[in-house]
């Protein structure tokens, strides 16, 4: 498809949108369907014209066959008269006229049959073309539905992904990291405070032992402190 053709189609689909936006797949496919439907309508109109001629040809053939039957009856009537002994020149003349007319009618049927056969072929071709367009429209409608569904899914995914990408996740995670570090620091400090508290407790125990006058008690206290 040439650029100008594409642009033309896009302008038909939505005249006042910018070129990038104009390539909306759903709008494009719907425009294609509209164009196919327009072609279909034109083809059906053309088929109707050909069909009208075909039907008229068929009707003429029916009339022509009726003429043969009627001239056959007339000819047989005259021949019956002749067989019954009517030898007048008028009757003989009439019999010739009837025979000629019968032949003409038979020839006319043959001609009409030929016309009908050709006409039937033309109608068949037109029908095939119309059916081809009809199938193309059905296929385009299916494809269009598919495109529309896929476009919706793609647009939804795009929206989600865009939302995800536009959010500063690194910053958020960095904050979380900082928060984590902060918590860790607090924990370390807490532990450190806990450790100094434990040391302070051991010193007071030693002091108590030092101040204790009993040797045994002092040793027991030292031993107990050494085991920890």
């Amino acid at each position, binding site marked *: 498809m040439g650029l100008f053709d594409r642009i033309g189609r896009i302008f038909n689909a939505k005249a006042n949108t910018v070129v990038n936006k104009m390539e909306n797949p759903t709008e494009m496919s719907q425009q294609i369907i509209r164009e196919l439907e327009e072609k279909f309508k034109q083809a059906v*109109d053309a088929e*109707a014209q050909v069909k*009208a001629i075909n*039907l*008229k040809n*068929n009707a003429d053939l029916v009339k022509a066959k*009726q003429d043969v039957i009627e001239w056959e009856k007339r000819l047989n009537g005259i021949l019956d008269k002749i067989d019954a002994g009517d030898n007048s020149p008028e009757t003989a003349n009439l019999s010739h006229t009837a025979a000629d007319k019968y032949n003409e009618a038979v020839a006319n049927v043959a001609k009409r049959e030929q016309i009908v056969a050709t006409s039937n072929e033309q109608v068949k071709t037109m029908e095939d073309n119309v059916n081809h367009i009809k199938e193309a429209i059905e296929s385009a409608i299916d494809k269009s539905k598919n495109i529309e569904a896929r476009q919706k899914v793609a647009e939804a995914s795009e929206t989600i992904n865009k939302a995800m990408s536009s959010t500063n996740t690194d910053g958020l995670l960095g904050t979380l990291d900082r928060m984590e570090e902060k918590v860790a620091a607090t924990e370390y400090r807490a532990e450190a405070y806990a450790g100094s508290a434990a040391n302070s407790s051991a010193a007071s125990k030693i002091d108590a032992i030092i101040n204790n006058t009993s040797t045994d008690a002092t040793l027991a206290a030292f031993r107990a402190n050494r085991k920890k």
Partner: protein
Amino acid sequence: MLLWQHLGQIEKNNFMNINEVKTYKAIILFNEMMNNGRKFKTVMNGDDKILEPLFIDLLAKNYLVINGDSYNTTEEGEKVFYNFMKKYKEYLKIYDIYSLVDLDKGEFAFEKFYDFTTDAQWDAYKNDQRFFDVRIPVAKFKKMNPSEIVFMSFINENNRFDTSSTGWQFDLMADNIWMEIDDICRSAIMIEDIGEDVLKNMIKRGTEVMMELMKKEIEINKQKLEEAKKEYMCLADDDEGMSQTDEYIVETTTIIEEYEEDLVYYDPYWDPWYCSPIWYVPLFIW
């Protein structure tokens, strides 16, 4: 069996020929076009395509023309259908009452038509086995075409030509229904089974019943008219109500006038041999 083989069979017996079958098919199409407003298309016509041979025959005889992508009736075609409708109206007025006759007692089920208040009661009464269908011997007695009477009964009863059902076009062009009509014509009670004198008396009585029914119909409608007129007088300030009642009065008056005209129109039927000339005029000339 193929269509032409069946039509061949129809042609062989004495009741229906190919042209009669074609006529009845065409009547159904014309009814669809003129009474139901259906447009038959020449192209993109789906199930209607099967009707094409019939359309071609009607085009050949100038009963139809093509206008754009549709078939249209000609003045000649409309005249044919109008004649058929006239016949059909007569059928409903005169011949339908012979569908339920008690041959032993000489009674017509329609004598008691106005004695029942519901359709169910009427149906129960008329389904009594003692009633016989003598429309065909009556038609033959009056030198009418029996198949035409059966065809009309098929239109009137049980919606045998239901053009709203899927595939009706096939049913119309296939021959089952025409074979059925033919079978009915062949297997019906004959004049000889009843006897000409009995049949003659029965037709006289049938005419009396028909006239009584029409008079009863006039009487009922006159009562309705009187009531409507009284109601109209009471609706002094109700414009809408007055307009509706006024409409009803006009309609009922028209019905009464039609029945009164019918009493005159059907007067010749007191003669048991009488039959309106419309029954002897062929509908389509094929």
